[in-house]
């Protein structure tokens, strides 16, 4: 018998409206993404020059940590050999990325984005289901714990519980006290992610950077297996580092590129346009013609020092 039940119809309509929630994706970030190196190509791939702290709002503590860094540590200390990039550094786009949309098997609601990086097989999850953060006593991980919320077509994510890692691969550290915020936005086949790192131990202001990826459906992500092997015999209590004031490599970037040495020491001032008025002249003028990393990205290619 066909019967109208007005009250139940109304309830069902309300239920249908309520269930149309932002837990369904506001944008689709899933897919294979290749990083674009149209900014800071030499720093991000071959690696930053020693002593290059340009544009990093370093604290005094962060600067000394960076000055003390000796890259020998990566091979001499076995535990560093296979150290992966942390959740914030991996977004500098050093390797290809696959983003998977994770859905509730019953409701099809999007509950998370899961990222896998080609480098060191790093994985990250950005939870979208509003789950609570782990305890302050819980372990920290490389990728941290990330929770995301939608704001129209933008995914905002906030990450805590990060292990100590680096802001640049020339020794500028990133402490385990840091957190970072991301803003993901997609335009066509471009995915842009702005990261804002707040590190009370290393930085005096948030570090804002943004990177772009391009959709690459033909990408085949393979394995990147790292095996720790002691390479250099050493005393058990030896850790490579430079004593304060003794690092001989800190002037290289200023000399090679004709930059004011003080600017290369970083600090929040160096981020702002007015810094140019007070940064002074370089001790050595820049070369008349480029001799280092001049053609990175030429024809869309790679980056060699010559």
């Amino acid at each position, binding site marked *: 018998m066909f019967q109208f039940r007005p009250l139940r119809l109304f309830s069902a309509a309300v239920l249908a409206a309520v269930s149309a929630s932002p837990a369904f994706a506001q944008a689709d970030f899933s897919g294979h993404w290749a990083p674009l190196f149209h900014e800071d190509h030499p720093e991000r791939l071959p690696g930053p020059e020693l002593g290059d702290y340009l544009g990093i709002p370093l604290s005094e503590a962060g600067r000394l940590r960076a000055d003390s860094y000796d890259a020998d540590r990566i091979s001499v200390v076995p535990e560093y050999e296979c150290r992966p990039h942390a959740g914030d550094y991996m977004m500098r786009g050093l390797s290809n990325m696959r983003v998977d949309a994770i859905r509730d098997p019953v409701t099809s609601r999007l509950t998370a984005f899961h990222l896998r990086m080609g480098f060191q097989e790093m994985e990250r999850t950005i939870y979208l289901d509003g789950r609570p953060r782990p305890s302050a006593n819980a372990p920290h991980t490389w990728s941290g714990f990330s929770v995301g919320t939608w*704001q129209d077509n933008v995914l905002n994510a906030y990450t805590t519980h990060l292990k100590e890692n680096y802001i640049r691969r020339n020794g500028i550290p990133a402490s385990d006290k840091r957190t970072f915020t991301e803003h993901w936005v997609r335009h066509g086949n471009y995915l842009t992610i702005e990261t804002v790192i707040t590190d009370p131990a290393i930085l005096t202001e948030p570090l804002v950077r943004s990177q772009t990826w391009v959709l690459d459906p033909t990408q085949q992500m393979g394995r990147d297996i790292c095996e720790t092997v002691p390479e250099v015999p050493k005393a058990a209590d030896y850790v490579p580092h430079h004593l304060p004031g003794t690092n001989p490599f800190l002037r290289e970037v200023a000399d090679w590129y004709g930059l004011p040495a003080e600017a290369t020491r970083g600090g929040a001032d160096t981020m702002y346009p007015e810094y140019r008025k007070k940064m002074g002249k370089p001790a050595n003028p820049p070369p008349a013609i480029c001799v280092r990393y001049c053609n990175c990205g030429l024809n869309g290619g790679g980056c060699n020092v010559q």
Partner: protein
Amino acid sequence: MIGHGPNRVALLLVMWGVSVSAQRGAPPGPPPTPKAAAPVDLTGYWVSLVTEDWRWRMVTPIKGDSASVPLNPAGKKITNEWDPAKDEAAGNQCKAYGAAAIMRMPGRLHITWVDDNTLKVETDAGTQTRILHFAGTAPATEKPSWQGYSVARWEGGLTPVGGQLPLGLGPRQSTRSRSLEVETTNLRAGYLRKNGVPYSSKATVTEYFERFTEPDGNDHLMVMTVVTDPEYLARPFVVTSDFKHEADGSKWDPAPCTAR
């Protein structure tokens, strides 16, 4: 109990009917103006945060240094031939301040609404002014310029395809975009960087302006710039420039273009 069968069909028909009738009734008014329809407020003063590409932005890069730019051989040749004295002699000091590169210049932006359909972006670096038109295309008589002709639109979000009837599917959902999309053409040949990395007059520039609010209350503006140039670029050149909101223009510091 609604369940399946006739009662379910009745429910769906009622929902569709409610949706349709909501669209009838009073005649639709004029669409909101771009200013009224703005999903995000981009106006105000913004200062560059030069945390990336520092030695290509805060200082004039070394001649011949085109690192990170996907130039083709023709573009690389032009780069290696850069002569700022020639640019000065020709009155082309502003060649590196065109629309394809101005967002990379360390400086401040001042964004305002000229009227309901026009945004203005002023820069203190090079004292440039960009006009973002929310309608129309470049007039035929418009001469190429450093800033070209910019057409803006609030980027369309996602709208349901296939009407409103949710037969067999979950509820449809529209998504609004918070991004301003700007297409710029009619450009004079200029430089992507102050050391003569070129773009041609055939270049087009597509930009997306985003505003983000951080947990600490700071607001950031991110401008994604895509430069497509069949003459000098092997592929589109994509950069993102970040800015921090400032309370006022007290640090506004106009400086003329320089070729060096």
